[in-house]
């Protein structure tokens, strides 16, 4: 019987199932933790008086509430953030968990550091108390976000109680046109499906356009599976995956590497494997995407107009679209191109890796940020920041008028002081444009790094391909 990648991963991790109506005990290979969703789980474990079962399969960092200001120093002015970080540091010390803190040189957004350390590997089950854990599925692993009770459950048992998900194949055929990126692709997928089409499903992204993506691009795609409602997205591993992981600090070495790659090569959906749902998308027709509403499913091409509540996308009710447009200060039929932008945020677990910063820097190089725009670049990790600085990207951004920050989640979630103000429009490379997500009353427009960079230069939304053409002809 041909199996999907998901079925293979599921079967390989079932420890036990008491009876058909009970959930399976699914073994967890990798657990990533951070300061915001873990403290109550450590408290719960302590109240039980039992040990953390597998500290060797767990790593920790600080990302959500940590400031990104250059020269950040401890104790933080924000007493609550300081208390969370202190709690994490005390907990990881007591439990013997590897900690990639600000002094480690490896601190960063949990979904950026897992892959760059080689902690994330194909074929694994990976969990974290963060919905964007779906990112790690780019390596052909089953990776999903969990709540704090489940974090405690993994601490205590290294297992989760799970029922199988349904499977959805998303076949992206053809090649992405020049200037259209992984971010545009995933926004186009979510715009087509709507924000909850993936509820109850695990998505497998397949097809030529997916195969052609770098690991960074694949991570961007899988990262936003949750924005279509799916807890996990995945891409079968291939030579691109293996080349990325080879020699990463925590990846297997020598004979173990050879054995691992041999196993990883078996991790593709079999010919003829059946999915519960199949979606086909033609990559060749896509253009750079922008969101116009208050969830990632409300997105269109940069050259399209805001839809009217009289003709909403099929997945959205007229009243919800009207409410979203009201919040966004947009009117039906308005072109998205030319929308004035107040803040530009390049960062987040979706788009803060080296490739993302390079794409933005290519647009920014030799230009200046529009005087009406506040623009930030927040590298995803200390490693990314160092790599970018070695390439001189920091100079390009700073010369243009961008703030060049320390790593963290920053303005994606606006917990650490990095926030937009009421009514401001932010062209953001992050993953959620929910009401208030980037600051109370703020209006988020989700875009790719190159599109964000172009918006910073022009002070409004533009089609980055037009600037790139100008640059070539200049």
């Amino acid at each position, binding site marked *: 019987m041909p199996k999907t990648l998901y079925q293979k991963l599921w079967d390989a991790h079932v*420890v*036990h199932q*008491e009876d058909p*109506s*009970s959930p399976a*005990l699914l*073994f967890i*290979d990798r657990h990533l933790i951070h300061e*915001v*969703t873990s*403290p*109550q789980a450590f*408290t719960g474990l302590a109240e039980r008086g*039992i040990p953390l079962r597998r500290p060797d399969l767990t790593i920790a960092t600080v990302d*959500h*509430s940590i400031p990104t200001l250059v020269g950040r120093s401890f104790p933080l002015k924000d007493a*609550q953030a300081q*208390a*969370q970080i202190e*709690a994490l540091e005390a907990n990881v010390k007591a439990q013997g968990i590897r900690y990639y803190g600000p002094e480690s040189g490896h601190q960063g957004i949990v979904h950026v550091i897992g892959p760059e350390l080689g902690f994330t*590997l194909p*074929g*694994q089950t990976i969990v974290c*108390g*963060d*919905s964007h854990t779906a990112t790690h599925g780019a390596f052909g692993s089953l990776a*999903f*976000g*969990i*709540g*704090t*009770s*489940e974090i405690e*459950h993994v601490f*205590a*048992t*290294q*297992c989760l*109680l799970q*029922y199988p998900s349904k499977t959805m194949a998303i076949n992206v055929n053809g090649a992405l046109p020049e200037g259209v990126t992984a971010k545009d692709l995933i926004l186009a997928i979510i715009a087509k499906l709507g*924000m*909850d089409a993936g*509820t109850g499903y695990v998505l497998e992204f397949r097809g030529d356009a997916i195969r052609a993506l770098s690991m960074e691009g694949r991570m961007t795609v899988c990262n936003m599976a*949750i924005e279509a*409602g*799916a*807890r996990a997205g995945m891409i079968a591993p291939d030579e691109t995956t293996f080349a990325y992981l080879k020699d990463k600090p925590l990846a297997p070495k020598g004979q*173990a*590497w050879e*054995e*691992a790659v041999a*196993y990883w090569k078996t991790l593709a959906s079999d010919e003829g494997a059946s999915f519960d749902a199949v979606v086909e998308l033609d990559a060749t027709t896509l253009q750079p995407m922008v969101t116009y509403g208050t*969830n990632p499913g409300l997105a269109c091409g940069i050259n399209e107009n805001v839809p009217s509540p009289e003709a909403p996308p099929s997945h959205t009710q007229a009243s919800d679209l009207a409410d979203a447009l009201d919040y966004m200060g947009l009117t039906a039929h308005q072109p998205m191109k030319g929308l004035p932008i107040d803040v530009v945020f390049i960062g987040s677990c979706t788009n803060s890796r080296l490739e993302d910063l390079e794409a933005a820097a290519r647009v920014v190089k030799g230009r200046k940020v529009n005087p009406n725009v506040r623009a930030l670049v927040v590298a995803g990790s200390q490693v990314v920041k160092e790599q970018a600085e070695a390439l001189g990207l920091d100079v390009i951004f700073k010369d243009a008028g961008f703030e060049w920050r320390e790593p963290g989640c920053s303005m994606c*979630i*606006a*917990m650490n002081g990095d926030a937009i103000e009421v009514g401001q429009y932010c062209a953001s490379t992050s993953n*959620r444009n*929910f*009401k208030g997500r980037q600051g*109370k009353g703020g209006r988020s427009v989700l875009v790719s790094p190159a599109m964000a960079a172009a918006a910073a230069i022009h002070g409004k939304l533009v089609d980055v391909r037009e600037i790139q053409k100008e640059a070539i002809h200049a």
Partner: protein
Amino acid sequence: MPKPITHISSRCVPLNKDNVDTDQIIAARFLKVTSRKGLGEHAFSDFRYMEDGSPNLDFVLNQPQYAHARILVAGHNFGCGSSREHAPWALVDYGFEAIIATSFADIFKNNALKNGLLVIELPEAVVSQLRRDCEANPALRVDVDVEAQTVAIENQTEQSFEIGAFWKKCLTQGLDQVGYTLSFADQIKAYEAQRPTFA
């Protein structure tokens, strides 16, 4: 140990919104805590409070006729977005015991049930009618029987809802899932022993 839940009988608050995300339920700026307690005052903060901190009387939770209602009746795709368990913690701390909606996001559903917050999926027609009925008659009582898997709306036919046998056992018996899992410690150990070294 979670407290067993068998019956809920309460008035309802109608929240006529689809896609209520966890950022709306509890904004990220309130997540800088190390305890599960006390988050109820921040539930729906951006909607409940005016700029000066006074209650927004247009928001349904602030309307006196719905005070002390322990069932929230929402729309479609409730709890989408972030995995923050602070969302169900805030709803429970606020006083909710059940949410009725046409659908729930996967992670939220799990998190809610782990905290004894019952999530009940009913058909669109039933949920929208219930919201209208609660708007017309805020005193309308709804009785939920977890064991029988029924929702009885005052003077109306009973509706049945789905909840897996395992979750029902967890809720009605207050089963501790960590304890349940650790009862299979031998199986976990055996599984760990056969994992390849690179895994």
